[in-house]
């Protein structure tokens, strides 16, 4: 009956979760209690393989990369959808074919749109 189900099979997962958190927290707390604390300027600088750090770690880069990445995700997901469709094609029949064609048609419009807008143009 819904509402009365207690997932007993997952009890070990809960135990692992608790033990893992206890070990993680315990290590941090033990470290704070045990370690000596003698900071000086040299020690507090970020570690960059021995070199003195230069500038901010974050730097600006061109928005073009974002656009390409976004378009890649869109068409990548399209391909992901097509794999199971191709595998189950004989079972899906004409219904599956029409559905996939509609899906691809809408993406095609999007493709024409981004192309014409010059999103693929690197310059």
């Amino acid at each position, binding site marked *: *009956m*819904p*509402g009365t189900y207690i997932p007993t099979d997952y009890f070990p997962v809960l135990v692992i979760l608790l033990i893992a958190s206890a070990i993680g927290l315990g290590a941090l707390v033990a470290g704070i209690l045990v370690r000596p604390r003698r900071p000086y300027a040299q020690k507090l600088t970020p570690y960059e393989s021995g070199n003195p750090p230069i500038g901010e770690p974050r730097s600006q880069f061109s928005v073009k990369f974002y656009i390409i990445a976004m378009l890649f995700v869109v068409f990548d997901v399209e391909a992901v959808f097509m794999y199971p469709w191709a595998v189950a094609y004989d*079972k*899906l*029949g004409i*219904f*599956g074919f029409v559905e996939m064609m509609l899906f691809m048609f*809408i993406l095609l*419009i*999007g493709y*024409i*749109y981004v192309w*014409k*807008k010059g999103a693929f143009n690197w310059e």
Partner: protein
Amino acid sequence: MDLPITITLMDIRAIVPELTLICVGLIIMLLDLVVKKKDLVALAGIAGTVLALFGTYKLYGVTDTQFVFSNMFVLDGYANFFKVIFYINLILTICISIKYMEIEKSSFGEYYALLLFATSGMMIMASAADLIVLYLGLELMALSTYILTGLMRKQPRSNEAAIKYFFLGAFSSAFLLYGISLTYGMTGTTNIKEIAFAISTLGIADNPIMYLGLIFMIVAFSFKVALAPFHMWAPDVYEGAPTSITAFMSVGPKAAGFAVMGRILMGAFGDMQAQWVTVLIPLAVLTMATGSIIALSQTNIKRMLAYSSIAHAGYILLGIIAGTPEGLTASVNYLMIYTFMNIGAFAIVIMLRSKGFQGENLDDYKGLAKSHPVAAALMLIFMFSLAGIPPTAGFIGKFYVFMELIGSGYTPLAIIAIIFSAISAFFYLRIVVYMYMKDAEQEIVLTQSPTMNIALAVTSVMVLVLGIFPSFLLYFVRYSIMGY
């Protein structure tokens, strides 16, 4: 193995209006690539909306209540009436935005396509008979409005609004999904009718997990319709977004949110009415208080109207709290009236925006009656209506909501609402005082366009006609909700 899904012609016919809007949206995206004049794109958008409206009208004649797509999508008077609100909202928004977006140098064809997509999302929400379909429609609406909010790319204010809206919107979507999953876990279904059936047969209306799921969903919808204390995003987003989008957002997503609220609270959680009323009453009081009191100290008209729309969400909520079909009728009636008066008010705000002049400060309205008597008179009508002064439609809307509330036995709540309504009259009438009793500090140039004039004519006439002859609209609403 046979495919369990079958889609019949009946299914397709039921979603013709939604399909029309999406197809026209796609066509607009392609049209935008070849057409230089954006007016034409906007007209295509209006034509598409009229086509969808015609489709809804045709379906309205055929159906009483019809479940399609394996009971996931419902076509009834309730959904159709909300769709009419969305169409009116869409057409009026397009009308007031053509010239404005040119002035803002943000006249893109995508603007109109996104408006159509957002509206089709709202329509799916209004017709959703399943929580998953509801979520789908909500995301289609929300994603489109996030982009529309940030459309003025060169303005930091617009970008900030879009980011804020996006984060808080994503947050509220998570709340909704959590609520849906809890409800699914308890009842074993996401179908609204089956949830109601499961609650009554399993007798789990008092179950705390059920209660938690209900509260999560109410929180999510409260974000969408901007009920206090989930309203924090609204003033910033309304101020930063293009003013035409502010008008669109303050009506469309709000109406869609109330549509699903009415359907889910009364449909799925009908047996838990005692529980959700206890949640909604404090929300309503807090919303009316926040909206009415904070609006008093605003100096920017867009922010002031944002707080005013928060207060109005509180009044609309009162009809749902009443918990009767009549109460819901009053709420829906109020929403329709609110559509006209709010878009009308924003249309005047847009008219004050001209090249090199923002026109968003309350001080800019000083002496408007001398230089532009017609615009000032129209603003007067909208402000009177928003404040709820007869003979405008705003009075009728409030009157029916309060009457139903008292009829259901919530007299103290109605008294609180009337007090806040009186407080809110102050900031509406302040604009009227500025326009008619103060002297202008600078010369105001109004930006006019034919479509803007049409929108203003329609909204002002409707506000007056619905105020003087309220029974027509009320009859129509009652007839629509009858089958619900």
